[in-house]
């Protein structure tokens, strides 16, 4: 049982590592802001899975996993949701004010370009 639990925990830990990489790439490199936010959520899911693997490894006393990391994940999931909500509110506001939904340097980035052009 414990060998399988350990293997399964490591498997999900590795899955979490992969998701962190994928999410991070999406956040850093994706040109679309909304997609970057989805990337954030994938990154978060990966991080939480690493916590999950840690928790599963710590199974003891008849519990299937260590409850402390599980509780942290629950807190983290809610915080990540709030972050997504705030980001989306900002994004929608940006879109309705400027008509663009990107921050990438190729499109005119308001404040800095304004400062530069005055220079």
């Amino acid at each position: 049982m414990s060998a399988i639990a350990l293997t399964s925990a490591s498997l999900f830990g590795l899955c979490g590592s992969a998701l962190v990489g994928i999410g991070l790439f999406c956040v850093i490199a994706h040109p679309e802001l909304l997609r970057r936010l989805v990337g954030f959520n994938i990154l978060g899911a990966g991080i939480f899975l690493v916590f999950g693997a840690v928790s599963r490894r710590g199974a003891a006393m008849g519990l299937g996993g260590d409850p402390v990391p599980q509780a942290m994940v629950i807190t983290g999931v809610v915080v990540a949701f709030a972050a997504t909500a705030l980001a989306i509110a900002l994004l929608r506001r940006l879109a309705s004010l400027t008509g663009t939904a990107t921050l990438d340097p190729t499109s005119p980035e308001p404040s800095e370009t304004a400062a530069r052009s005055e220079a």
Partner: protein
Amino acid sequence: MSLVFDIALVSGLIALALHVVVGRDGKGAIVAFIAFGLLLGLAWVRLAAIDVALTEAAIGGGLTGMLLLKAQAHLASRASRATPAFERNWHVPALFCGAVTLGLGYAVLSFPHPAPSLAREAVAAIDATGLGNPVTAVLLAYRAIDTLLEKIVLILALIGVWSLSTDNAWGGASYLRPAMVPEPLIFLARVLPPFGVLIAVYQVWVGADAPGGTFQAGTILAAMWLLVLLAGLRAAPETRLPTLRMMLAAGPALFILVGLMGVAVAEGFLSYPPAIAKPLIVVIEVALTLAVGGTLALLVSGPPDRAPKP
């Protein structure tokens, strides 16, 4: 057999995540993300974390999906351009992220044996709380200050979202109902919420002793409320309403008060007198559930966009 199951699950998760990143159209990526959330719920079950599975299924599969779909619809109606392509030098971040994954994988595999765990301590101390679910004990007793401050985080996020309204609409209501509401949606919004509320009540109730609890229940309540708003059965409340604000603040405020009470009658801030620990925790959970439900639903609704009625 169960390892095969896990491998299938993990491959599904990674495939969906990749699709989200490289997929051409935005809406498809979001739908894939919702599916990702569902699979993630299953993954948490496999990790023997039912409480997390409930939270993930509710938030990842439900509310976040709605939030993203709503934003996507809004943005698509404004900026109808083709998806911009990746920058030419995408290899550099890809290499960097690959390195992060490798390092992380190495760290995960190098964890010590036997694994350190607080399960023993958590179980040993649980009698003082009167609870049966160790995760709830962590959330509301051992690490109660995390949970309490996380409620403040939610409220700050909500204030942040509200502050993005215009000066006119400040204090007003946000508007969710689409111009045309399909008939089945109205039907769903009439029939589903009673079930949802029942399940939420059940979740809070069992949360003390079995998987479930305030976040899960709050999320379900939020989803049901949003469904009603979406179908236009009720209008969203004006954000300046004292009753609404009272509901949002009551949970955390009660939490703080009980915490301070602990200074006087128990062993300090956020410690409960053992004799009444469980009832106190359940009362806090009920109040928090309402606050969480309200806050999450309002976070999804977004900033007010209608001026308050005089």
